C-alpha cells in the first residue's frame, strides 16, 4: 500500500509542474496592457514604467517564471494588482464560499443519487426507474445556469409568500451575520497561519455556525444555500444515479450473487450486503470525477446566485487583467482538483486490493 501511495504521489509531481507552467504562460498571453487596465486609460508612461518595474513585468519571461516558482515555494501567491491585497488573503475571503457550495452540492448529489440509483436498479423498469432515469437524462442536459434561473423563478417568485419560498441570492439575509470563531472564542491575539486558518474556517458559515451553536444564522445560511446547491448538484446527481444503477445491475447478474440467493439468504441481505458493496466501487471514482464539473459549474452558479466566490473573482480578474489573481486562483483550483483525484485514486486502492498490484 505504501508503495502504491508513493508511486501515485510521484506521478503527480510532473502534473503539478506542468500546471504551474501552463497557468503562468496563459496569464502572460492574455492581451491588453496590465498597467492601463488597472490604473486607467489616462495613466502616464512614467507611472506605467514604475508600475511594470514594481511587479517585475519588465524581466524576461524565463526569469519571471523562475521568480514565480521561488515565490510559490514560500507559499506566496503574490499581491493582487487590482485589490492591492495578497492573493492568499483574497483566497481566505472567497474560497470558502465556493468550497461550501461545492461540497454541499456534492453531498446532495451523493445522498440523493446513490439511493435513487440503487432503487432504480432493484426495481428495474418500474415507474420509479423509468421516471428517475428520464429526470436524470434531462438533468444532465440542462445548463447549470438555466436550472439555477428556473429554480429562482419557481422558489423566489412563484412561491413567494408561501413557506416554501427561498431566497434567490447571497449567502445570508441582510442584517444576519455569522460570528467568526475569533469573535466567539475571543482569540483576537492569535496571529500567523493559525489566524489565517481561523479566518478561513469562519467564512465557511455552516460548519462555523454549527460548532458555535449559532442556530439562527445557521438556518438562514442553509436556506440561502438550498437553491444553488440543487442547481449545481443536479448534474452530478444524475450521473451518480445512472452509474449506481448500471453498476448494481451488472453486479446482480454475477455468479456470487446467484450463489448468495441459492443458499437461501433473504433478498434484502443479498442486495444490501453482497451486491451493493461491490456495486459502489465504480461510484467512488465517479463521485471524485464530478469535482471538476462542480468547480466549473460553481463559476456559473456564483454568477446566477450573486455569490462572491472563486469563480466570480477569477472572472473579474480576467476582465481586469489581474495576472496575479488569475495565476493564483487558477492554480489553487487546479491543485485542489489534482489533490482530490489523487485521494480518489488512493481510496480506490484502499477499497479494491486488486488495484494496488497494478
Amino acid at each position: 500500500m505504501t508503495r502504491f501511495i508513493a508511486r501515485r504521489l510521484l506521478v503527480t509531481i510532473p502534473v503539478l509542474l506542468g500546471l504551474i507552467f501552463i497557468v503562468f504562460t496563459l496569464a502572460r498571453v492574455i492581451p491588453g496592457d496590465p498597467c492601463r487596465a488597472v490604473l486607467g486609460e489616462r495613466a502616464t508612461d512614467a507611472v506605467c514604467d514604475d508600475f511594470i518595474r514594481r511587479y517585475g513585468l519588465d524581466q524576461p519571461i524565463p526569469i519571471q517564471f523562475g521568480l514565480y516558482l521561488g515565490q510559490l515555494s514560500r507559499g506566496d501567491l503574490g499581491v493582487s494588482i487590482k485589490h492591492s491585497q495578497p492573493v492568499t488573503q483574497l483566497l481566505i475571503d472567497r474560497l470558502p464560499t465556493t468550497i461550501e457550495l461545492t461540497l454541499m452540492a456534492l453531498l446532495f448529489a451523493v445522498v440523493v443519487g446513490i439511493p435513487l440509483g440503487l432503487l432504480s436498479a432493484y426495481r428495474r423498469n418500474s415507474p420509479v426507474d423509468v421516471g428517475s432515469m428520464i429526470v436524470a437524462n434531462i438533468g444532465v442536459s440542462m445548463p447549470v445556469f438555466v436550472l439555477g434561473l428556473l429554480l429562482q423563478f419557481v422558489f423566489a417568485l412563484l412561491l413567494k409568500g408561501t413557506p416554501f419560498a427561498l431566497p434567490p441570492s447571497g449567502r445570508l439575509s441582510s442584517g444576519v451575520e455569522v460570528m467568526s470563531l475569533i469573535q466567539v472564542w475571543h482569540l483576537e491575539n492569535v496571529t500567523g497561519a493559525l489566524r489565517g486558518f481561523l479566518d478561513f474556517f469562519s467564512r465557511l458559515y455552516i460548519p462555523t455556525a454549527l460548532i458555535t451553536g449559532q442556530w439562527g444564522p445557521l438556518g438562514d445560511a442553509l436556506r440561502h444555500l438550498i437553491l444553488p446547491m440543487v442547481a449545481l448538484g443536479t448534474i452530478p446527481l444524475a450521473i451518480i444515479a445512472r452509474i449506481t444503477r448500471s453498476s448494481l445491475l451488472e453486479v446482480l447478474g454475477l455468479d456470487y450473487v446467484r450463489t448468495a440467493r441459492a443458499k437461501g439468504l433473504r433478498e434484502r441481505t443479498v442486495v444490501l450486503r453482497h451486491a451493493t458493496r461491490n456495486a459502489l466501487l465504480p461510484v467512488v471514482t465517479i463521485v471524485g470525477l464530478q469535482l471538476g464539473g462542480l468547480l466549473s459549474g460553481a463559476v456559473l452558479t456564483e454568477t446566477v446566485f450573486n455569490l462572491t466566490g472563486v469563480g466570480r473573482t477569477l472572472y473579474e480578474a480576467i476582465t481586469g487583467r489581474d495576472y496575479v489573481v488569475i495565476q493564483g486562483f487558477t492554480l489553487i483550483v487546479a491543485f485542489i482538483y489534482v489533490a482530490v483525484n489523487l485521494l480518489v485514486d488512493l481510496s480506490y486502492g484502499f477499497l479494491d486490493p486488486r488495484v494496488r498490484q497494478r
Partner: protein
Amino acid sequence: MTDHHPTHPAAPEFGAVDTLVSAKPASLWRDTLAGVLRQRSAVIGLIILGIFLFVVIFADQIAPFDPRQSMLGVETGVLKQAPPCVHLLGCPADRYEHIFGLDTNFQDVFSRVVIGSRISIGIGFAAIGLAIVLGGTIGAIAGYVGGKTDNILMRFMDVVLAFPSLLLAIVIVSALGSNLINTMLAISIVSVPVYARIVRASVLGARENDYVTASRALGESTSGILIRRIMPNAVTPLIVQGTLGIGTAVLEIAALAFVGVVSLSEITWGSMIAIEFQRLFTAPHIILAPGLAITFVVLGFNLLGDGLRDAFDPRLNR
C-alpha cells in the same frame, strides 16, 4: 459502466467494410443502425436532433423576422418584453404574432433562437471534430510508438485534464481573445485528452493482433498499418464519445457565452440568456426559450450517444 474492448470479434470487419458492403448486404453498419433504431431513447434522440438539424439548415427561411431588427416603430403598440403571442392559442388577433415573445430590445425571441442555433450547435460540431482529429493523432502516436513519446504525450494530456474544463476554456478564450474561432479552439483543446485516451487505448489493444503483425510482415508502411489496420478499431468508441461530446460542447459554449467571454453581439443561446438573465422575474420567456433549446439539443445528443453505445457494444446485444 461500459468500457470498450476494441478487439471485440466484430471489429476487424471495419477494416474491410468497403469490400464487404457490396458482397454482403448485412454489413456491420446496417446491423448497428438496426440496433440503434431498436432503442426508444436513441430514436427520440434522433428525432430531436433531426428537428434541430432542419432548423440549423433552414434557419433563414424559418425565422419570421430579422433577429437583430427592433420591432419598435415597425409594429404599432409594440411592448417591450412582450410575452409570447400565438393566434391559434387564443392571443387576440389585433396583436402581432411573436410565438416566443419579444426581448428587451423589441427583437423577436423566436427568430433569435432559430438563428442562434447555428453558432450554438455549429461550434460544438467544429470543436469536437477538431478535438477528435487532434486527440486521435496524439493518441495514435502515443499508443503506436510507445515508450518515452507515449509517456510525454499522455502526461501532457494529464495536465490538461487537471483543470476543470470550463475554467480552462475561460482562461484560454481570454488569453487568445474572445471571438468565435477562439471559443471553438478552447472547447476543442479541453476535449482533446478524452479522445487521445480513447484512441491510445484502442491502438494498444489492437497493436499486437495477428492481422497487424501480418500486415507488418507483408511490408505495409507504418502509417498504412495505423490508418488501415489499427484505427478502424477506434471508430466505434470515437463515434459514441463524440456524440456525447458534442452535447457537452454545446453546454460549454452556452456557459462561455453566459459568463461573457464570448462577445454578446453574437447571437447564441448562451448570450441571449446572459443579456437578459437579470429580467428573469419580469420576463421569464426570454430566458426560457433559449434555455430549453440548449436543454433539448443536449438531451438529443445524450440520448443518441447512449443508444449508439448500447448498439455498438456486442455484450449487450439481445
